[in-house]
């Protein structure tokens, strides 16, 4: 097996292959790091032939903070706080991923109540993340109104979180040994009220965006990703499932209380932008199902089983655990030497692998398609650079 390595410079100075009877040239454009549709500081170098995209080269590193390296200097509980800043729309799932690997390695106990609360807040956050994606997706396709609708409804979930957790975005709620606080007395009531509010809103969303003929025209058959290529590129989450692979860690390796609840894994057929759109919209509905099954049956019990000041020591060795965030598989690899802080940490983040699918999808599309594809992957840039 040979690996072909080429620098950006080499690619840019390559031969022009513009296809036109006129004497035209291909040209390069920097999309980002400051661009409305790259959702942060992502830089894409585009090789364009007129409006047609010939090549996309993602360039990373603009928001690299060395989160994994910083993790080596603190203890395990402090690292939980850091991972909030990776994929900030799945902060709770990130917390849980670290918690899971620490609990598994250090053989810490949890109870049913803790697991139920963790499952509930993570599903709420999945809805929250998908609502934000829906709004931004509409905006990237040129419709401004969905953005406000999506954000308006997402804020209500943030309000629910704020009552229990005290934070709206970077929550560090799920900790090794439990959750930081018990749920707010009004949590159950609020969540039920929100779900009964959201369900008719989803119908409204469909009327505004899903059923719009322009959206259907813009998305169907655009940015196809075959199942084989999706697996080869390491895509996970809705991107992989839209390509027809029913891989969801909540089903295949259930954690939390996912084994006890009944839900479906929506799967696409073509792997185009439309399938990715549909899969996410359907996942919102499935998350609602999961929450509805759990919200009335939160068991009684303590919510934090270790003393807050207790030192956590993980036995020496290599530990790995993964779970399904709103964007795909987040795996945390922990190398421990038995001390209080980890020897080495590596996070396998979903967005990094999902991003590289853009090269596969975008070739031959238009600039407008590229924006739709990038948005349908639903990247969060701080999760790519870490």
């Amino acid at each position, binding site marked *: 097996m040979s690996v072909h390595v080429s620098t950006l410079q080499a690619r840019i100075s390559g031969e022009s292959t513009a296809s036109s009877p006129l004497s035209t040239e291909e*040209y390069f*454009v920097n999309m980002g790091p400051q*661009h*409305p*549709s790259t959702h942060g500081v992502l830089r894409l170098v585009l090789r364009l032939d007129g*409006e047609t995209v010939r090549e996309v080269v993602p360039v990373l590193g603009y928001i690299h903070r060395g989160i994994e390296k910083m993790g080596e200097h603190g203890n395990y509980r402090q690292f939980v706080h850091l991972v909030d800043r990776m994929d900030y729309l799945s902060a709770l799932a990130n917390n849980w991923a670290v918690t899971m690997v620490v609990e598994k390695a250090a053989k810490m106990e949890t109870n049913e109540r803790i697991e139920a609360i963790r499952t509930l807040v993570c599903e709420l956050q999945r809805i929250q993340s998908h609502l934000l994606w829906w709004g931004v997706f*509409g*905006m*990237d*396709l*040129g*419709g*401004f*109104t969905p953005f*406000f*609708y999506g954000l*308006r409804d997402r804020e209500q979930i943030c309000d629910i979180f704020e009552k229990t957790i005290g934070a709206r975005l970077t929550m560090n709620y799920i900790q090794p040994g439990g959750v930081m606080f018990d749920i707010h007395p009004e949590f159950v009531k609020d969540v039920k009220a929100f779900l009964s509010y959201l369900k008719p809103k989803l119908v409204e969303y469909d009327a*505004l*965006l899903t059923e*719009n003929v*322009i*959206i259907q*025209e*813009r998305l169907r058959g655009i940015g196809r990703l075959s199942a084989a290529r999706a697996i080869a590129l390491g895509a996970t989450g809705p991107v992989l499932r839209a390509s027809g692979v029913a891989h969801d860690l909540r089903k295949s390796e259930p954690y939390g209380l996912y084994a006890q609840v009944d839900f479906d894994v929506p799967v696409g057929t073509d792997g185009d932008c439309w399938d990715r759109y549909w899969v996410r919209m359907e996942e919102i509905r499935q998350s609602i199902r999961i929450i509805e099954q759990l919200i009335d049956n939160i068991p009684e019990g303590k919510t934090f089983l270790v003393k807050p000041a207790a030192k956590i020591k993980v036995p020496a060795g290599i530990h790995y655990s993964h779970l399904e965030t709103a964007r795909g598989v987040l795996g945390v690899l922990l190398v421990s030497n038995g001390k209080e802080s980890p020897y080495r940490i590596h996070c396998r983040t979903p967005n990094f692998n999902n991003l590289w699918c853009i090269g596969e999808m975008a070739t031959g599309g*238009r*600039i*407008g*398609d590229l*924006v739709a594809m990038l948005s349908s992957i639903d990247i969060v840039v701080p999760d790519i650079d870490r």
Partner: protein
Amino acid sequence: MSWQVKTIAQRTGDLLPGSPWTAALYVLLTILAVTAFVTVAGLVLIYAERKIAAHFQCRVGPMRVGWHGVLQSIADAIKLLMKEDIVPRDADALLHILAPVLSFAGMLLVMIALPMSPSLQVADMNIGVLYVTAVSGLGVLGILLGGWSSNNKWSLLGAMRAGAQIISYEVSATLALLVVVLFAGTLQLSGIVQSQDTGWWIWRAHGCGLVAFAIFMIAGTAEINRTPFDLAEGESELTAGFHTEYSGLRFSFFFLSEFLNMFVLAAMASTLFLGGWMPLHIGHFAALNGVMDLLPPGLWFALKTTAIIFLIMWFRWTFPRLRVDQLMRLEWKILLPIGFVNLFVSAACVVTGFYFFAR
């Protein structure tokens, strides 16, 4: 009831034999009035757009500056005046400066031909429709120059998109205009309005008028670069399209002419299809027509134009954007054939006199 049309140009002509200075003063006042109208209408439209957009999106919009934010547009205008006016180092400075002026001039020249009421029209040319079509084409020149002279690839892409789009959709818009010209039998805008004193062309022509109106609205929205056809600006794709490199006053000229073009489109649509300042008349029902005449013609024009502007804003805050190739397909494969068929059917209607209340 017959309408006496007297334009400002005619009144100036009447003044001329008496004293050329009075006539000159009159012209000067007219120029001032048109400029003032353009400015005020621009501010009002921007405020209306912000408020309407806000209420479409479940928010309240500007609320702080003045009562319900009515002075917000003025504050924005002052901000734009204060901003540094940047001409990029590698830009073609002359063309860069000329582009917004051209864009603005195209809009301003159309403005003088609009019949707002029998007594409020600057000039009433006998080739009015042709003049409007020709002069509004100047705007695209401004956009092309702006994108080209900025020396920025995003601007260039936006300008090229705008060029292709506006020129393509002009064809359909003109075909739709021709339907009304056929029925009215004149190119003069006040003549077209007066030809509708037994009913508006949108319903008098057995559907031909309605189809032409729909085509005109779609093509017109594309010509003024508004969503779902805002590809030239294409914020999420091209950052800001052709005016990426513009700031301060020059940007505000592009911005203002964009909004005033919306007014021009609405005014043209209401003049051609909804009777302009002509009240709602149905045939020779004198009672109904008399009641409708109670409202002054200027108010009728304002109401119709406002309704169409609201419709255009509604488009913008509901629809996502089309893609470049879909845009071209819509024009050349869908709108244009329908437009041609519609034109032939209308011609047949006109020749046979087969429409409501034919003379």
